[in-house]
């Protein structure tokens, strides 16, 4: 049963639509015709005047019928929809109604207007109102006199900054950003290893300030963080500075307006800021990871609020980080790294590729401690002006990485514990020969930054990176 009458016409209009007003004479002709006509008005039950009109202001029927444009004329036959015309199309309307002289004197065609049931945000509102979608998470009623921000703080849901209150409407809108079912379990989130559903991800993404179109990225970020080799539990629990650093590659970074240019590692871009924050809120709220609890950072770093940016992929000759790490070209992906703060590497004097590689290696050698080796990983964020020096010499990713590896080899004897009057250093058995600063694949080279500035950035990695069999950066393709 469809609930629709047989052999009838159903017309959906709104007074606010100029086309609907233009075709008022034709609507009256339909009403006088042989087929029963029901007129459903989305905004004014007195329109069109002089006819019985069904009050459609609750938009429920329009929503169920999937109306996108007004006017829409439906031909019903045997209780089912037998035909549909959107906007004023005289020939089509004549066909549907069987009135061969319908609309004589009116233009042949006029486009309609957007239906109110598909106005921005309205479909989700109607889905909630009509019970088409439900939210399983516990409801927390905020008393009229209470401030929802303070309630969120009171429950300990925030990272110290205000959150966007996760209301049903915002959650349903967020869930529209993915085709995945709200009840699907994405994984077990440390440190408490509790199941996190897509719905919980959406709630925390709302709180972080994400737009629905960021949700696929947030889901991929969480899945990447939960890969055992990323060791999210250890990264959370460490006394070291580090937290997850997220690099986004591929078309989605541009589609959602991520920043890979001026101030790429800084504030001001909504996607950069909120995607990183969403991960931290999920770890906090679902996993139960809070500073002073399992998070035992001695000092931490400001990137633990959020640390997420996109790679500059504007040079077609540059191999993006994701591709270098095995993701097919042209796909969107996230890479997660265990990073602490940003260290500046200023070099305004090197003019050749070799000079610059040696210079960058000097800065990179300081990661963790200048006398430590194969102890932590690092990201080198290569700015456009520094990259231009390499590019002028014909160097791209492979040549730059090879040169840095060459320039990061140091005599073991100079790094031993106690050498140079400094207690810190490597073990005595490594005295002979050369020692590399990083494990193979332990240095991630990424391009980002504004066009001006002969400076690049080093993001040092977690001390857990010394355990190369147990802890590694991860990359994951984004499901779209």
């Amino acid at each position, binding site marked *: 049963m469809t609930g629709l009458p047989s052999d009838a016409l159903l017309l959906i209009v709104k007074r606010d639509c100029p086309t609907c007003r233009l075709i008022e004479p034709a609507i009256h002709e339909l009403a006088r015709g042989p087929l029963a006509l029901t007129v459903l008005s989305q905004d004014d039950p007195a329109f069109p005047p002089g006819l019985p009109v069904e009050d459609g202001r609750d938009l429920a029927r329009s929503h169920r019928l999937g109306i996108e444009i007004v006017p829409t004329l439906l031909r019903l036959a045997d209780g089912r929809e037998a035909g549909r015309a959107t906007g004023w199309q005289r020939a089509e309307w004549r066909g549907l109604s069987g009135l061969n002289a319908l609309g004589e004197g009116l233009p042949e065609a006029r486009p309609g207007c957007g239906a109110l049931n598909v106005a921005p945000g309205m479909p989700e509102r109607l889905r909630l109102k009509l019970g088409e979608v439900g939210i399983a998470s516990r409801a*927390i009623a*905020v008393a009229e006199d209470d401030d*929802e921000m303070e*309630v*969120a703080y009171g429950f300990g849901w925030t990272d110290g900054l205000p959150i966007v209150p996760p209301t049903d409407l915002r959650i349903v809108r967020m869930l529209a950003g993915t085709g995945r079912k709200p009840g699907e379990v994405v994984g077990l989130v440390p440190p*408490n290893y509790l199941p996190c559903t897509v719905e919980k991800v959406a709630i*925390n993404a709302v709180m972080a300030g994400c737009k629905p179109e960021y949700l696929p990225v947030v889901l991929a970020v969480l899945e990447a963080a939960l890969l055992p080799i990323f060791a999210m539990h250890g990264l959370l629990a460490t006394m070291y500075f580090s937290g997850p650093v997220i690099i986004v590659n591929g078309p989605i970074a541009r589609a959602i307006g991520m920043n890979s240019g001026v101030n790429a590692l800084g504030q001001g871009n909504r996607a950069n800021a909120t995607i990183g924050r969403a991960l931290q809120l999920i770890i906090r*709220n679902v996993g*139960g990871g809070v500073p002073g609890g399992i998070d035992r950072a001695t000092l931490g770093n400001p990137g633990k609020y959020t640390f997420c940016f996109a790679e500059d992929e504007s040079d077609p000759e540059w191999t993006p980080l994701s591709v270098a790490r095995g993701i097919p070209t042209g796909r969107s992906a996230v890479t997660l790294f265990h990073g602490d703060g940003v260290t500046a590497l200023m070099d305004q004097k090197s003019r050749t590729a070799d000079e610059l590689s040696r210079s960058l290696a000097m800065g990179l050698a300081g990661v963790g401690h200048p006398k430590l080796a194969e102890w932590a990983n690092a990201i080198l964020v290569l700015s456009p002006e520094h990259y231009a020096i390499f590019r002028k010499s014909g160097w791209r990713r492979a040549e730059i990485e090879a040169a840095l590896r060459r320039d990061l080899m140091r005599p073991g004897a100079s790094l031993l514990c106690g050498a140079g009057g400094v207690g810190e250093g490597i073990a005595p058995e490594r005295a002979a020969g050369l020692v590399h600063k990083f494990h193979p694949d332990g240095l991630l080279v990424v391009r980002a930054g504004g066009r001006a500035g002969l400076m690049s950035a080093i993001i040092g990695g977690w001390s857990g990176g010394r355990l190369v069999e147990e802890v590694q950066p991860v990359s994951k393709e984004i499901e779209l």
Partner: protein
Amino acid sequence: MSIVMRDPTAEIAPVARPRVKPPASLDGLTVGLLCIGKERSLEFLDRVALRLNERGIVTRRYAKPTHTKKAPVALLQRIATECQVVVEGLAD
């Protein structure tokens, strides 16, 4: 209009937040005695102070300017900084 938010956590804690547990012992703690500014509050707090001091427990005295208004933020912050336990006095 009141609003409903959805719980972002794994829902292993009850919605009603538990009160902070009182300490098992007052030994070594500083107890703040807050006079709310109403008649005879001081008389009550003097007796509490006497009893606590007899047991070697350190007390500090505070007073709201008036019982008709809530305590000023600066006073609350001072008490939170200087004490671990607070007794509010009222003796009608």
